[in-house]
């Protein structure tokens, strides 16, 4: 039994890395997505095409490839050395930022043009209109898609094993390889389920909060 407890403890230690990466990615990629979406719907052709190029690259290539490129490629091409955690964080923030950019852009353009007109005839500027009228309504509409991404991210963090960063799944895998038992995989599965359940619960609460006006 102490063997199992030891396993659980070792896997949980790995989960801390997973959770840190998760937290950093969510906290940075959502604002990045908001900015990206605002840039993409802006009148500036240049800004909109630069962002279009960014989302094209990051949505169009595998996350794993991006991780390899930033961890192994950047030191090689630019002489920038990143530790595993930094490389993983940058990759995940940029990748998820690209998806959030497109999700939020879709939310923004789904808002009725009458909302812009009403704000305009009341004398509101474009930035006031965005901040006070359009974006708050967008939140409600993008919650389901954002929730999907937030759940996918939990599982995507397992990719960091590819640059041999310790995480939940890698630690589990190490025990499996050492002790010839698949119990660590079961434990890892349960932990992933717990994490995603918490996220689902949070998003359900958010949806309830934002649907009061509908």
């Amino acid at each position, binding site marked *: 039994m102490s063997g199992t407890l030891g396993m659980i403890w070792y896997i949980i230690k790995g989960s801390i890395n997973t959770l840190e990466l998760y937290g950093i990615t969510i906290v940075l990629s959502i604002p990045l997505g908001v900015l990206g979406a605002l840039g993409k719907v802006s009148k500036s052709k240049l800004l909109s095409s630069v962002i279009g190029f960014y989302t094209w690259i990051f949505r169009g290539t595998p996350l794993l490839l991006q991780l390899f490129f930033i961890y192994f490629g950047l030191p090689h091409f630019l002489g920038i050395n990143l530790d595993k955690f930094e490389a993983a964080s940058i990759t995940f923030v940029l990748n998820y930022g690209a998806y959030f950019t497109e999700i939020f852009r879709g939310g923004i353009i789904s808002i009725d043009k009458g*909302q812009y007109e009403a704000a305009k*005839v009341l004398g509101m500027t474009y930035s006031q209109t965005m901040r006070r009228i359009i974006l708050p309504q967008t939140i409600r509409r993008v919650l389901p898609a954002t929730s999907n991404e937030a759940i996918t991210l939990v599982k995507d963090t397992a990719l960091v094993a590819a640059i041999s960063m310790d995480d939940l799944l890698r630690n589990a895998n190490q025990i499996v390889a050492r002790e010839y038992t698949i119990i660590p995989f079961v434990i890892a599965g349960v932990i992933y389920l717990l994490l995603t359940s918490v996220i689902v619960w949070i998003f359900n609460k958010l949806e309830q909060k934002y649907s009061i*006006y*509908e």
Partner: protein
Amino acid sequence: MNMIQATNISKRFGNLEVLKNVSLSVAKGEVISIIGPSGSGKSTLLRCLILLEKCDGGRIEIEGIPIEAFDETGRRIPLPHKDVKDGVRKMGMVFQNFHLFPHKTVLENVIEAPIIVNKIPREEAIKEAEELLSKVGLLDKKDAYPSQISGGQKQRVAIARALAMKPDIMLFDEPTSALDPELVGEVLGVIKKLASEHMTMLVVTHEMGFAKEVSDRVVFMDQGEIIEDAPPEKLFNNPDHPRIKAFLEKIL
């Protein structure tokens, strides 16, 4: 000085000429109804006056401030940004489909622009908003969301929201066209109340009874032109133009 002086406004959507050299002047305290068949350019005219649409020619002055002007060659004359902003702010607008902010309560809809645009302290904005809401008979709905009230109530909130910016001129773009018939009266009642307070108003409407009752002048538009601009008794009883007769016969 006229409240609105629009001269030779023209507007095209692609090849379609929706406004052909339309001129209109509105004096202080006047209530003008704009009527005519759909597609005649009534709403476009209103939208051009408040710069929701950019017209392609002509000149618009609001209380003497030019907010849109073109030179003889048809090129737009750049006007001081501040003048344009000030001119436009003298007008409030009410839309056919209300366009209330759905994520804000009735009260929040009304106080939003006074606080954000005019930088009025929140308590003061609330006090004024509550007065306006009681004027349109909706003070008891102040904490409701737009989705929880009827169309007629929404439009009355929209009127209160526009009035909260203290406009000198109110533009109404078919304010009752999206309403169930039994809700039309309550909205027209509010507009009549404003007329009795001598608010300058321009109302695009299909409500002929209303136009006859409250207007100082009725403007009939057809195919992008003003066909006749006359007091209601004249326009409804003895119009100069056969097209007006035909239109009135069809709808009355």
